[in-house]
């Protein structure tokens, strides 16, 4: 029943610690203009705008889409604002896709951003509310115990995280938009970087970035008129579960496993490791690569770390993960999920440049958020379904 939806334009900014040269409208417009140029479309061609970002306190503007959409050609058009915690970039892409799949619009511009230099994300995450546990150490302090839980459960070698970080930091050197680029990065350098939240070291964690990502999504009819090869949306899925309750597995949450099963069923995928050519997975702390390899059913329980050890997730391995350098290299939080979705699309369009995975035909984009409780994913393909 659903109409087909394709990615026909992709744009992103060079991610960096502080974009002092542009305002928020300037930042989002830069990514959007690049997506329009890629699709060879103009503002006039866009039917609706879907904007996503993480908590408004990251910039200190309440519902900032109200003041931003004008810079995105949204005047006198429908504008939606999505917020689903860290998974928001992914959810934003999914909501935009659904407007096309529902047959409501032919061309939708979707944009996600964070301009962390405008405010202080650590502060925004640590406001203490009555009767609630304060997370005074930001996201790293929240996730470190979950990583400890994974290491113990899986019997994973302690250097697994360092290996992931080394791979992603080397991949980032092939991505001109990546924020953190360390030209001569070594295993020893990562291993000897300061321990921030045991077992997460400084170089195993994501940066705070200013950045934006944009995509133009189009119906089959509209996609036929665009110049470059589209990335076809094969399937999308979202799952959420509560933050706290007794017996909840916070390491590999059921919402992740349910999301993966439903996504693959929708895409007709039976053996994800064999059938998916490249995955962009939300890995803000190195250890989340082996954890989500299990959470996305690429590896059996407790064996995700083995794929890291075998080099399976390197460019050239059988399932390259985060050839872009991933969230570890660029983290404009609200955009990080949409970047995963966009990088997956770049791969199947053959547009990924130096970090292109040869012959990529099916790619996964993945995002998660909250206390490992929100998941949004999509699979894109070079072939029209």
């Amino acid at each position, binding site marked *: *029943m*659903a109409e087909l939806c394709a990615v026909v334009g992709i744009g992103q900014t060079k991610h960096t610690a502080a974009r002092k040269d542009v*305002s*928020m409208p300037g930042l989002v417009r830069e990514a959007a203009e690049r997506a329009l140029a890629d699709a060879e479309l103009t503002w006039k061609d866009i039917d609706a705008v879907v904007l996503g970002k*993480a*908590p*408004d*306190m990251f*910039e*200190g*503007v*309440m*519902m*900032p*889409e*109200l*003041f931003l*959409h*004008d810079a995105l050609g*949204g*005047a*006198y*058009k*429908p*504008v*939606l*604002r*999505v*917020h*689903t*915690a860290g998974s928001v970039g992914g*959810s934003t892409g*999914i*909501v935009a896709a*659904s*407007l096309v*799949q*529902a*047959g*409501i619009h032919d061309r939708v511009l979707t944009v996600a951003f964070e301009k962390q230099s*405008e405010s202080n994300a650590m502060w*925004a*995450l640590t*406001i203490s*509310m009555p009767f609630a546990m304060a997370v005074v150490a930001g996201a790293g302090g929240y996730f470190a115990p979950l990583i400890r839980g994974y290491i113990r459960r899986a019997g994973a070698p302690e250097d697994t995280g360092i290996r992931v970080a080394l791979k992603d930091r080397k991949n980032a050197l092939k991505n001109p938009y990546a924020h953190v680029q360390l030209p001569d990065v070594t295993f020893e350098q990562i291993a000897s970087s300061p321990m921030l939240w045991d077992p997460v070291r400084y170089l195993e964690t994501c940066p705070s970035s200013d950045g934006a990502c944009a995509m133009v999504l189009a119906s089959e009819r509209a996609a036929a008129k665009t110049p470059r090869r589209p990335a076809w949306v094969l399937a999308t*899925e*979202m*799952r*959420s*579960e*509560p*933050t706290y*309750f007794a017996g909840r597995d916070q390491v590999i*949450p*059921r*919402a992740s496993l*349910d*999301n993966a099963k439903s996504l693959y069923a929708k895409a007709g995928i039976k053996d994800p490791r064999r059938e998916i050519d490249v995955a962009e997975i939300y890995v803000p702390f190195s250890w989340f690569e082996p954890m989500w390899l299990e959470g996305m059913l690429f590896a059996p329980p407790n064996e995700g770390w083995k794929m890291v050890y075998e080099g399976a997730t390197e460019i050239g391995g059988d399932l390259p993960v985060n050839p872009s350098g991933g969230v570890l290299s660029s983290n404009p939080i609200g955009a990080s999920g949409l970047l995963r979705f966009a990088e997956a699309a770049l791969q199947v369009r053959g547009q990924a440049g130096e970090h292109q995975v040869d012959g990529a035909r099916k790619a996964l984009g993945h995002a998660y958020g*909250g206390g490992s*409780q929100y998941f949004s994913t999509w699979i894109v393909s070079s072939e029209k379904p």
Partner: protein
Amino acid sequence: MRDVAVVSFAQAPSVRREPDRNEVEILMPVVREARERSGLRKDEIDFICSGSTDYLAGQSFAFVAGLDAVGAWPPIAESHVEMDGAWALYEAWVKIQTGSANAALVYGFGKPSMGDLPEVLALQLDPYLLTPLWPDAVSLAALQARLCLEGGVVSERAMAEIAVRDRGNAKANAFAQVKGDFEAAKLLAEPYLVDPLRKHDCAPISDGAAAMVIAAGDVARRVCRRPAWITGFAHVAEPQDLGVRDLTRSRSTELAAEKAGALKGRVEVAEIAAPFTHQTLLVERALGLGRDVAVNPSGGALAANPVMAAGLIRIGEAARRIHDGAARAVAHATSGPCLQQNLVCVLEG
């Protein structure tokens, strides 16, 4: 397009201050009631979408707690907009249109009593040029009202009559906050709150929540005696900058009404979410409502205005009239300073 209908609706009483209950505690009975009235099992509702904003709670990720109100276990397919619940309803309606869901639960909630709402809303403005001046929401609406008065688009008397009408209608609404019999002449004798707005021109500040279940074709027909079919649904945003907009009309409401086909048939009932009397008049005009239309039988937002739920409540109230036998209703929701963004939903029996 698939046929989609509102099959149930529930709301919390709007009150100036909920001193004892947090958002989840306000939401839980409302969600339960909407679910029970829908006649659908929990597992038959295959999508959930909510609307709220972090800045009312003063906490990042404030919406996450909402998951505890719906019981997100086993894990649910779910989304959230940082917008009024009316837009969450729009996202859920789109989801059903894609065919990947057949029934959806939608909710919206707001507890502005924890802060100073008009001042908090100043944070919606351009953070570089406007917010540092901290123009509160009532003052911005007063600027708009002044333009409307001087342009001859509204009169203070017509504004007071809107308040009299809506507060009078609200007497029949157990969930409304400001209600009773008033006289325009006496209201006009009151002092200005922010010139030219008097207290009766402004919606109250309300804590509240609402939940709704919508379902596609056969599911709706199975569980609901008289489903309220959504036959038109559209929303449009204007640029925010007050200097580039004609503030004496609501162009985005006009466009949304046109897209939703609001004027393609006789409108029996209209529910309007505008939080000021002059804005209610602008929206009535933009919707092209005739004199025979029952406007705001619930009392509208001027009688109860829980931010982030007020728009969804208008759609719920309109749906309730359809459930009770009305033929065709139009509901409106708004967001942003001076009617910046507007949504129109057409419901039919």
